[in-house]
């Protein structure tokens, strides 16, 4: 089998799994879960084969044509796609295995695993796509699978609302994305990624300010950047493995992946904007995370913040000194740093979410961290692996997060001091809220019945935790990441000499300050220490968190819905009433005729029709 056939197989396998589950296994939850997991295992295996085989290729077929306009479906398998496919395949497989245990007693298990398979299909489609139309197709499909899986507990109003919100907010972003793709088609005559790159190499590419801006809208929606970040915290209504897979490791990172795919179209002003959007999101989400009580919400805001860092890194790429501006090499530094962090983040954030899932499962679905506590001894495997995840995200030297975060900080330090300061402060906050979460959840005494009766999860759940913990330790070393990312890894900016020392010092300092203060400040108690000690600060942060939702709720209920009601009213009054009376007057003859017809029985209708037809025939045949 050629590598191309491997790639096609890896795309179609999960679709086949989803179809089989939807058609035949609706009531066979156990069979469905094993089929879906086996499929994910096969995907992981093939993705490793594809990664290690080293062959990189492209191929496409035409799918639709009208005149000169054609849409193709194709595969562009380069080092970037190989890396992303590996992440999706391996993290996806581990999360499938975890779900076997986590969803074991769920009545709608088949729907859940069918949804996971649909998601794997859609996500792999984005990864392998060779053109923007195809990315958009699978972009919409991941949005659908996200909707389906957030909606899993659909009898809960909150879950139904969250799913709807996620889909609609994403569509707002896609509004710009689709406009951008269409603009790209007419501006450059192609949406094929390789052809765009070739045009860029020969300086034949048409640049425009609007084009990358519109395309970036897509990333703002999917990667939940400000101001469209509101859907991601709500999306935690879905089952925890879904949060780990879709809303932490893979789908939300698709925005960053897409930006790297279209980096050739970027212009400096838009990159600056991207940098600031990412930076603002990173800071805002980190501030929100500090006041969360729900274990999954802390992780959700943390995800937002980390995604902000990646987007900022991409935007920073433009400004790295030492390269002459404009070329792709400059951008690649930012994109590579973003992809590096995306990779390590996928490992440790999936680990943290699954750890949270294990906690939730072990504590009988208690998610409030102030009602947990004392899980260190009751859930040892979860505790150790979760600790590794925390250490990785706060950037302890030697763990994966340390290397990728330093690459981004170095990039920021080299160019934009303000961004550097904000990102460093965000790193302090990250260490602070993660250690807060860790301490309150695992240390001290159990603070509720649920936590007292906590038990360690079974092997299907702890094994993925251990595997992800290994990846969270090893994933940052150049030996490992270099193997995974190939040529992408070579572009990751690395500090040397004095810059190296400064970055190392800063990195250690922010981690120590953040982690240390959280460790000292928070008591393992049933109440939030910050809320007691600094009431104003706490209220301010809570307000900050809620302000966006309030604003959007106000818009939906008070502006959009009222506008709709007003138009509906006008429509009923004017169109259906006045104008139509006039229209009916103009065609009064017909109106009267119709009314006359209507008063009769249905025979009258038939009679008039037959009468007319007979008249015509008689006329033609020369009766008159």
């Amino acid at each position: 089998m050629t590598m191309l056939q491997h790639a096609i197989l890896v795309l179609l396998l999960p679709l086949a799994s989803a179809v089989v589950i939807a058609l035949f296994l609706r009531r066979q939850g156990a069979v469905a879960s094993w089929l879906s997991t086996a499929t994910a295992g096969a995907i992981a295996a093939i993705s490793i084969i594809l990664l290690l085989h080293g062959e990189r290729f492209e191929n496409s077929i035409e799918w639709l044509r009208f005149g000169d306009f054609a849409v193709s479906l194709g595969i562009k398998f380069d080092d970037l796609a190989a890396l992303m496919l590996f992440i999706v395949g391996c993290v996806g497989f581990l999360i499938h295995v975890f779900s076997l245990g986590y969803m074991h007693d769920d009545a709608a298990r088949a729907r859940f695993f069918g949804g996971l398979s649909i998601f794997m299909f859609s996500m792999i489609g984005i990864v392998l796509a060779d053109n923007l139309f195809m990315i958009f197709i699978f972009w919409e499909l991941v949005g659908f699978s996200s909707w389906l899986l957030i909606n899993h507990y659909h009898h809960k109003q909150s879950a139904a609302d969250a799913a709807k919100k996620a889909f609609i907010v994403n569509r707002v972003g896609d509004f710009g994305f689709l406009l951008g793709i269409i603009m790209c088609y007419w501006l450059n005559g192609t949406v094929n990624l390789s052809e765009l790159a070739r045009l860029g190499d020969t300086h034949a590419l048409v640049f425009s300010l609007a084009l990358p801006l519109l395309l970036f809208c897509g990333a703002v929606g999917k990667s939940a950047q400000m101001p469209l970040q509101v859907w991601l915290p709500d999306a935690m209504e879905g089952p925890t493995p879904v949060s780990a897979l879709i809303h932490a490791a893979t789908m939300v990172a698709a925005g960053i992946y897409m930006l790297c795919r279209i980096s050739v179209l970027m212009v400096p002003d838009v990159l600056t904007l991207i940098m600031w959007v990412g930076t603002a999101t990173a800071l805002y989400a980190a501030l929100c995370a500090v006041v969360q009580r729900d274990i999954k919400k802390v992780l959700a805001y943390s995800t937002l913040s980390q995604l902000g860092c990646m987007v900022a890194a991409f935007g920073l790429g433009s400004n790295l000194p030492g390269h002459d501006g404009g070329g792709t090499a400059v951008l690649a530094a930012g994109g590579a740093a973003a992809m590096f962090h995306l990779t390590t983040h996928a490992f440790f954030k999936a680990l943290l979410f699954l750890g949270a899932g294990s906690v939730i499962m072990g504590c009988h679905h208690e998610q409030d961290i102030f009602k947990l506590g004392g899980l260190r001894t009751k859930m040892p495997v979860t505790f150790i692996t979760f600790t590794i995840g925390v250490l990785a995200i706060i950037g302890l030297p030697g763990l994966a997060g340390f290397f990728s975060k330093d690459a981004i900080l170095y990039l920021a330090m080299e160019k934009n001091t303000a961004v550097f300061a904000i990102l460093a402060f965000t790193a302090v906050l990250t260490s602070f809220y993660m250690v807060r979460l860790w301490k309150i959840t695992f240390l001290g005494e159990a603070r509720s019945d649920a936590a007292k009766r906590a038990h360690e999860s079974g092997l299907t759940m702890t094994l993925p935790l251990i595997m992800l913990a290994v990846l969270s330790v090893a994933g940052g070393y150049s030996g490992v990441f270099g193997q995974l990312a190939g040529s992408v890894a070579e572009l990751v900016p690395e500090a040397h000499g004095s810059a190296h020392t400064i970055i190392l010092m800063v990195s250690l300092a922010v981690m120590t300050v953040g982690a240390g203060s959280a460790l000292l400040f928070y008591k393992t108690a049933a109440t939030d220490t910050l809320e007691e000690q600094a009431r104003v600060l706490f209220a301010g942060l809570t307000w900050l968190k809620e302000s966006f939702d309030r604003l959007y709720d106000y818009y939906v209920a008070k502006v959009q819905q009222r506008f709709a009601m007003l138009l509906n009213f006008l429509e009923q009054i004017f169109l259906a009433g006045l104008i139509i009376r006039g229209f009916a007057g103009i065609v009064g003859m017909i109106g009267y005729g119709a009314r006359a017809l209507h008063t009769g029985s249905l025979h009258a209708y038939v009679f008039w029709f037959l009468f007319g037809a007979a008249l015509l025939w008689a006329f033609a045949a020369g009766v008159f």
Partner: protein
Amino acid sequence: MPDNAQLLQLAIATPLGAALIIACGLPKRFSTKLAAAAFTLPALIALWLWSQFPAENAHQYAFLSTTYTGLADFGISLKLGLNGIALPMFLLAAIVGLAAGYYALRSGAERLKLYLLLLLVMHGGLLGVFASVDIFFFYFFHELALIPTFIMVGVWGGRDRHYAAMKLTIYLTAGALLSLLGLIALYVKSGANSFDLIELKDAIAAGGLRGSTQNWIGGLLLLGFGTLVSLWPLHTWAPLGYGAAPSSAAMLHAGVLKKFGLYGLIQIALPLLPLGMQHWAWKLALLAGLGNVLVVGFVTLAQRDLKQMIGYSSVMHMGYCFLGLACLSTIGTGGVVLLMVAHGLSVALLFLLATSIHHRTHSFDLSEMGGLAQKTPVLAAFFVAATMASIGLPGFANFWGELTVFVALWKFSPGLTAVAIAGVVISAIYGLRAAARVFFGPVSEQHQRVQAQHPPADLDWREKLPALILLAALLFFGFYPKAISQPVDQALGYSATPKALFTPLKTR
């Protein structure tokens, strides 16, 4: 073994003949069996003809046959055939007719025999519309399908059926008469002395029509056909009529018969009156973009009645069709044909499912519903699929139609493209909101009371089969749009390339 041209005749004659036999007093138990056969046969023939369609000559009419009618003096003869544009529409009519027919057979309607008879006449008319090469019969078949619609709304309709039937009759008769005037004017001005579309084309290509003549005939056709397709602000009959119509009639009218106007514009107005269409393009695009898409989009958001909401959403989607037409390009027109087929399937499916929901909730009021999915997961899955199709999710045929129209529209006006794509956001809001209101969240109080009296059962086979037919077609064209785009592209390449359109014709 009859040849393909005879099969095409047979497809149209079958439902009409069956209706005649039923009218002659066939007992009820035979009538339902005959009707079932008469709904099935055209679908099988349509699939066969589709497989037999010559791919390389799609611009020409295949399966041609001419029947003498006694109207030769007027240049009228029953000339049947299919070209690349007519083929997908004929297939659409056959598929939706099959689903609507099967649904009607077990609908338990009162006076079932009469109901089936009217539906069969309507189906025969619809098949005839898209197979007619002669524009007189094109119009005749439309009327043949329209009259049963009025009767079915008036007799079997729901709330406000008398008012709805009257309004429907006034609007659609007015629209039809205006378009008839336009067609007659075309016939007179072309000098072809024939209603045969092929001869009309030849005559006009040879002689050419003056720009001003094209303008007024084009305007007449746009006004007439536009009313039939619910062009804003002449659309108010649609939500009201569909809200009141019995499900099978709503499925056939919204799904297929409504496309008569668009089909007429594409097959007749675009190739014969290019200058006239160009003259009206901007006005049409503004009405469709701002009226059908934006205004009606917001109005749809305000609807509380499920069927009215589907009716309004269908008016909104017709806006995309008009926008695609206004581009006057192969891409735009091709997108319209794709969208017509896709919308026809998805709106029929939505009307079918809305009735199935009504059977279980005894209400169309969205504010009274909630949590139905807990009892009827299969119905919920079908409804979600239909909603996703209608809001243009990839994987369903609608996506390709919308995408193609948007791409074409950018060349016409980037601003209107933004408006059109904003409409996609609006449709996501009302679509998902309706699905969530009906199926998700806790079971509503109102519904608990209904459930206590009538425990809701999930979708049974008599509902599932027609729904599956429609859903399978949506998915098939969603995964393989080439099945439609290839013949359409070939036919358009001949009749309406941008080049042909924008080169002014010789004037007399």
